[in-house]
């Protein structure tokens, strides 16, 4: 027997078929069982933020930021944050529960669906959660009359790649997580700093220069916020294109890495 046949390459592009949608569909079906509860947080959280920070804190911010009011500044960020939360937490806590506690993946890979397709289906479902959650937040923002450009219509389209990026990043942590409490680390070392420092509640330019550079270039949420804000306000420039390319590139890389890591975890 040729030994090479038994050695899986370190990093391979996953071979995927339509079957990954069956995994996505399983997650959608499970989500729809409890949709009433699932729709509430993305509906109420942005309302609270807009009231407390936008109107409350905003009344103390007596100047405009980049020509807009404080509430107009944070509204697009809330949409981006919902993309991040929806997908990242789906592919960390929820995927971990399905993998470890419910053994759902083990059940599925005993069928013609492959392990790569299971993970790809989970990632696409995470992206779908970003789409669902951010569309609800977008509706709230619209209800507060904070949209000033018809380009906002592109935001659901944007939410899918953004969601896929955060799903893939989350799934890498899931592949490495020894237990569910482990997710506290990416939570406070990665997600919380992004939540606060990605040009979400104040412009990145207010940060000390060293931190500003890092936030501007390396934080994935910064690019999502740039894009969302640009589309809501109708301020389109080359920066948006660069942010979009950045997101697509990071998504492709981590999509492949996360599937490989999960395959290694589930099979070896």
């Amino acid at each position, binding site marked *: *027997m040729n*030994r090479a*046949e*038994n050695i*899986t390459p370190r990093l391979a592009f996953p071979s995927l078929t339509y*079957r990954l949608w*069956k995994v996505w*569909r*399983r997650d959608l*079906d*499970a989500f729809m*069982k409890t949709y009433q509860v699932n729709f509430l947080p993305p509906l109420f959280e942005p309302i609270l933020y807009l009231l407390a920070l936008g109107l409350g804190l905003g009344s103390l911010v007596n100047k405009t930021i980049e020509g807009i009011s404080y509430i107009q500044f944070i509204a697009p960020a809330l949409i981006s944050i919902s993309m991040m939360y929806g997908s990242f937490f789906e592919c960390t806590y929820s995927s971990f529960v399905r993998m470890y506690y*419910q*053994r*759902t993946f*083990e*059940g*599925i*890979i*005993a*069928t*013609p*669906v*492959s392990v790569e397709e299971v993970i790809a289906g989970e990632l696409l479902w995470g992206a779908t959660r970003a789409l669902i959650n951010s569309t609800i937040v977008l509706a709230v923002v619209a209800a507060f009359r904070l949209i000033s450009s018809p380009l906002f219509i592109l935001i659901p389209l944007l939410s899918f790649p953004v969601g896929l990026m955060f799903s893939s990043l989350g799934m890498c942590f899931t592949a490495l997580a020894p237990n569910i409490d482990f997710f506290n680390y990416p939570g406070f070392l990665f997600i919380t700093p992004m939540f606060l420092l990605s040009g979400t509640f104040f412009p990145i330019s207010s940060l000390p220069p060293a931190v500003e550079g890092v936030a501007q270039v390396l934080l994935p949420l910064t690019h999502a916020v740039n894009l969302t804000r640009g589309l809501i306000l109708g301020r389109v420039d080359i920066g948006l294109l660069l942010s979009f390319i950045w997101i697509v590139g990071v998504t492709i890389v981590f999509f492949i890495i996360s599937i490989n890591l999960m395959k290694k975890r589930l*099979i*070896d």
Partner: protein
Amino acid sequence: MTKKYNGLVAVDGIDFEVFKGECCGFLGPNGAGKTTTIKMIHCVLPLSAGVLTVAGLNVSEKPREIKKMIGVAPQESNLDPDFTVLNNLLVYARYFDIPKQVAFERSKEMLKFLQLEEKADVIISQLSTGMKRRLLLARALINDPQILLLDEPTTGLDPQARHLIWDKVRNLRKRGVTIILTTHYMDEAAELCDRTLIMDGGRIIDEGSPVALIKKHVGGEVLEADYDEAVLKALKERLPGARLEILGDRVHVFTDQPHGTFERFLEDFDARGAMIRKANLEDVFLKITGRQLRE
């Protein structure tokens, strides 16, 4: 074929065949490599070395084709707690590309076969262990498999639930399904299997039909008696070829002498607590895998 995990050899160069339409049992203590072997058969674990073919297809080349014709009931429940009993089957059928209507009819039929019809709309957490095990079997049958893999199908079940599963397994075997099961219950192997492979430490240490294995290793009957120096001495004199095993305060005597040897011994010699019983697979198993605990 061989399977290694991070330097630990779980399956150590085993070589075996399972024939179409038979019920073949893998017997062995915990950690013998039974589950690993099962997982390699249904293409979930890649082999570290060797070749494994299922129905003429190589597991490393045609996993999807193989998985299409196999049904798997795992040791621990991996039923989907997010769905009801019926929806578990319907969602699972989707992974096999079974059309919706066919899946529905097949699910109903399987629930009936495993006496779970009344539980169709119940959520998984409300099922007893026995019901879960039956549902796992129903789910394994959803794709009308030619080969059924059962990993410890009755571990932890009460006698009623156990017998129901056995009954269904026999029924499936009669219909021509090839069945591969693992167990550490010797009565289960004796009850269901045409052939058993005894595994220990990742190797197959013997194989044969339960009856042949018993005959080969422990003969027809076993004499048990309370431990007593005098009895032991008499046994050694009268039955020189017999194998004596002292277990706590009991003596087990195995012999290949013909039926009646023990009766004659007991007629002449009054051994306290004496009992003659038929030798069983458990005697074989303990003889060839030893008595130390496996944890």
